[in-house]
Every structure is written in C-alpha cells, then in structure tokens.
C-alpha cells in the first residue's frame, strides 16, 4: 500500500458515482430485502442502507458463492472449465468483512491459486466504510483487533457526517475514484476527526490482552474443559460456518446428467462442524464428535491459521454468535481459555 492521500467527498457524490458506475458494473450494497437487510445487487443508490445492520451472510458469497459449476464435461472426455466473473462494485463493506476478504485473498492465492475466486476479486472494486461503533451486543471485532480494516479494500470511506474522508489502497481503486467520484483535497485533521469519533465509539472496548499469544495458548489448551462444556451443546448444524466470513472449505462433486452423457463439476460450501466433513471412504471419521469438531474450528481461527495469517482468523463479526441456537461463541471460548 502506498502512502495514502487524503481526499474528501460528499455522501451525495458517492451515491451519484455509484449510479453512474451501474452501466459498467453490477453494484452490491447493504439493502433491504423483504424482512432482512442483506448485501445484494441493487439497481439504484436509493436502495442502499447506509446505517449498518448485521447481515446473515458476509460479502464472501459474491467471490466464493454457496454453489458454483466449475467445469462441464462429457463422457467422451471433453472438459470445459467455467470461470464466471463480472465487474462488481461492493459498496459499504465494514472492517470485519474487509479483514475477512484479506484472509480469503491470502488463502485462495496459495499454491496455484484459485482461478474462480481470484478472477472475481480481480474484477471487483471493494469500497469499505469504517465503523464508528460496535454494531450490536454479539459483535466482538474489537476483541480480536478487527474493528479496523487491515486490507481487503480498494477504497475506504471514513464517516464525517454528510461527507466521507477517502483513502485509496489500490491502482484500480484510484482509477475508479477518478472516474466516478468528485473529490476535494482533505487534511490529515479530517481523518483524525473521523478516527476520534471511532475512538469515542469504541471507548473501553479493548482487545484480548494476550491476543498475539493465542496460537501458543490454544496449543497448550487442547484438553481444556471448555471443549466439552461448549461442544456438548453443539447441534453440529453448521450454521456458524455457513455465516462465517473467513471459512473457505468446499466440497467438490460431479453431477452427471440423467442421460449419463454429460455432467457438471460442482463446488459448494462445506463445513468442518458437520459430522460427515472428516468422514472418509470405509466410514472412518477423523473427528467423530461435536467436541472435536468445535475444537478444530476454533483452533483454525485462533491457533494454526492465526499463526499462518499473522492475525486472528476470527474477525469478531458476531455472525456465528447470532446464528448459534445453542449459544456457543468463539469469544466466550477464548475468554475461558485465555482470560478476558
């Protein structure tokens, strides 16, 4: 990231710019859909909800959809890969989800890279909006040092009443900004003002004291009673994983057409909390109990993947806490193991 230049724009100009961009990009924003507020495609900036309300799913679904066809095949052996990416603008993504995107970017870029995910990211412009307060009682972004975006965005907006302070983080963000948003130069004090408001909003909400040491601490607590206490209530329903902005496991299955002549290779979200996830041919299951599965999931967030990504892989968005009918929370587990 180059040294950020500070720019100012009005909220009106941003909304107008999005409407103009609509002819070239599909626009995604927080919007009302029946009884829910979700990230969805919009046709006009009038449909945007600027005030954040927690959504069931994160913006992950636009880069790594619930289901996708990754190739078509015929029984004669003709194989055609499918990569479907379109020009997208994701507007109003909050820091938790931006950190989620950053983690997914790292995960999907590994080894040969995942062409489907990466091409969608390549063709997208992510516009973040910083949070100035915690969104509800279940969110705990501040506990895992995730209430500020460490990456995952092209343009970041900081709320300054009827204006935004803008920071640009990528060349494609810069190009988009120049094309669609009217800006005026800003001062470092403008950004400081927005950040001061954030500081006020998060006053007294501190990260876990020993957050950096989590991988080490979780490694030492493999037999902690919390795994049984929390795991015994777990329904193994997979809800926590479905809603998680950083879970990226998937299953791949060939779906042969009924005429047995051609087929499609599908990939769909999978979940390590589901009983069949670690089941292999012959029926052996490497994680047969909910307790082991919960331990594994939390270890991915706070132990081995955290060590790999250099940040907690739980971004504290609170979605799994809201979704869990049995009231199982990574925050509570971390508190029981590491202290408040």
């Amino acid at each position, binding site marked *: 990231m180059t040294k950020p230049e500070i720019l100012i724009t009005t909220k009106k100009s941003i909304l107008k710019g999005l409407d103009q961009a609509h002819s070239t990009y599909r626009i995604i924003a927080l919007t009302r859909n029946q*009884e*829910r507020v*979700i990230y969805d495609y919009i046709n006009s900036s009038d449909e945007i909800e600027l005030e954040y309300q927690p*959504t*069931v*799913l994160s913006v992950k679904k636009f880069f790594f959809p*619930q289901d996708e066809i990754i190739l078509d095949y015929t029984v004669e052996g003709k194989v055609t890969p499918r990569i479907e990416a379109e020009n997208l603008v994701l507007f109003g993504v909050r820091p938790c989800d931006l950190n989620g995107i950053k983690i997914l970017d790292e995960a999907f870029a590994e080894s040969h890279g995942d062409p489907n995910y990466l091409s969608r990211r390549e063709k997208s412009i992510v516009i973040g909006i910083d949070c100035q307060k915690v969104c509800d009682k279940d969110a705990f972004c501040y506990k895992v040092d995730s209430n500020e975006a460490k990456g995952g965005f092209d343009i970041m907006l900081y709320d300054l009443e009827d204006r935004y302070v803008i920071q640009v983080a990528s060349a494609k963000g810069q190009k988009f900004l120049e094309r669609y948003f009217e800006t005026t130069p800003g001062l470092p004090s403008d950004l400081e003002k927005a950040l001061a408001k954030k500081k006020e909003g998060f006053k007294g909400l501190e990260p876990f004291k020993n957050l950096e040491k989590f991988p080490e601490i979780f490694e030492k607590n493999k037999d902690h009673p919390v795994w049984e206490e929390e795991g*015994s*209530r*777990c*329904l*193994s*329903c*997979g*809800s926590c994983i*479905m*809603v998680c902005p950083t879970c990226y496991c998937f299953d791949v*299955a060939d*779906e*042969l*057409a*009924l*005429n*047995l002549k051609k087929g499609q290779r599908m990939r769909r*979200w999978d*979940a390590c909390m*589901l*009983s*069949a996830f670690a089941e292999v041919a012959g029926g052996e299951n490497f994680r047969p109990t*909910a307790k082991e599965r919960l331990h594994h999931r939390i270890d991915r967030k706070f132990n081995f993947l955290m060590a790999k990504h250099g940040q907690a892989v739980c971004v504290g968005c609170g979605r799994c806490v809201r*979704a869990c*009918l*049995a009231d199982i929370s990574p925050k509570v587990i971390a508190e029981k193991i590491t202290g408040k």
Partner: protein
Amino acid sequence: MSKPKVAFFDFACCEGCQLCAIDLEPEQLLDLVSVVDIVEFREAMSETGDQLDIAFVEGSITRDSDIDRLKKIRERAKLVVALGACSMIAGINALKNFQTKAEYTQAVYPEDPNKYETTTAKAIGEIIQVDAFIPGCPIDTGEFLRVTKNLVLGKTPDIPTYPVCVECKRNENVCVYEKGIQCLGPVIRAGCNARCPSNGGYCFGCRGLIPEPNINSQQDIMQKYGLTYEKMLEKFKLFLQRNQEIFGDDQ
C-alpha cells in the same frame, strides 16, 4: 446391456410421492426411461413384472397382511428404496400410534370399529432390509432422479446428512426462532432447500432426523424459546413417532 428393471409399489399413503416421481418434464421422462425400464407402476401403467432391479416402495405398513406383500417385494428386488416419509419413517400414518387401537378405530369408524384390519403404523425398514431411501413429504423430484441415477450407476445415493439449518443459512434466511417460531430444522435432514422455513413456515421434520441428532440440545433450545416439554413433544409428533430416543419403544 439391458436396462435395470424398476417398479413402484404402495402401502398406506396418499401416492403423492409416486406422483412426484413422474412429475417430469418430457425431456426428463425420456432421459429416465433411457436409463431404466419401468416394468410395474400401478399409478402409471397396467403391466406387471417379475424380477426387479429396483423396487420403490411408498407408504407405511399398517396391516398385518401388508407384511407378506412387502416381504414378497423384497424377495423379487435386488434393491428396495423407501420412497418418501411414510415408507422411510412411517410419516403421518404413525400419528395413530399415539392412541390405542380402540380409540382410533372408534374415532374413524364409529359405526363399525372392527370393519377394517389395522395395527401400529411402521416404516418399511422395521420389517425388511431397505437399501436406500428418498426422504420427504412429499419427495423432491430432483432428488428422486439423482438417487435413481446413482443406483443405476452402482453408487451410494448422496442424501445430505446435515440439517436444514445449513440450507437456511445458505439462503440467508432470518432464523425462524428469531421470529418466535420453534423449528425442527437443527436436527432434521436437509435436501429440501429449507423449503418450509424459506417460505414463511418452519421445519415439521418430514425428512426425518439427521444421523446423529443432538436431541438434548434441541429440546433445551425449544424450551429456552418458550415451549413447555409437552408442547415441544407435539412438534416432534407429526413425523418422528418412530424415533425411540424421543418417544420410547411402543412395541
């Protein structure tokens, strides 16, 4: 290679699952008959076959005389597939099992309670070995086609073992518990694309329990969300009467 011979049979049921099985687009029907030979299907044809590769059986066993007929089907067929909730888990036919025979025969036929033969409603798997099942009330046509295709290919049918919650979350539904409605989704087998909760209802449990349901936790949750123990059991009654963990052994 000759096509596998397939037949359909029914016991106590509404025959709706068989209807779903042939509720096909013309192209699907042609594809289906290009891979299987349907030799017996009372709802769709008059011929009968002899030896069978796959027997789809709809309906619950509710009379002693059904047992012989079911066993004969088993003898004729290489594979027996339970078609739908009545066959797989005894379905709503098993609601009568909550009453004594005297009570329900009196209620239904007050003029002549002993006119018809009837006994405890059972799933076919309680009588014979079942090789595969297609859950639901009614079944999903797409799932029927997938299972049939897999059986023809010699593969184990890929029926979800995870619960309805997975599909609700994928569809980004607001959890019905948040609307004050108690749902069986967390312990019921998915594969219906969460049809009821996605359309203003809640999960009644027609696809049966997942293989390892956490019934204790489900009961705690329903009670936490305001149901008394009795009211909670009412919710389980509709489709899960044959589950011994919930309702005990009625034999």
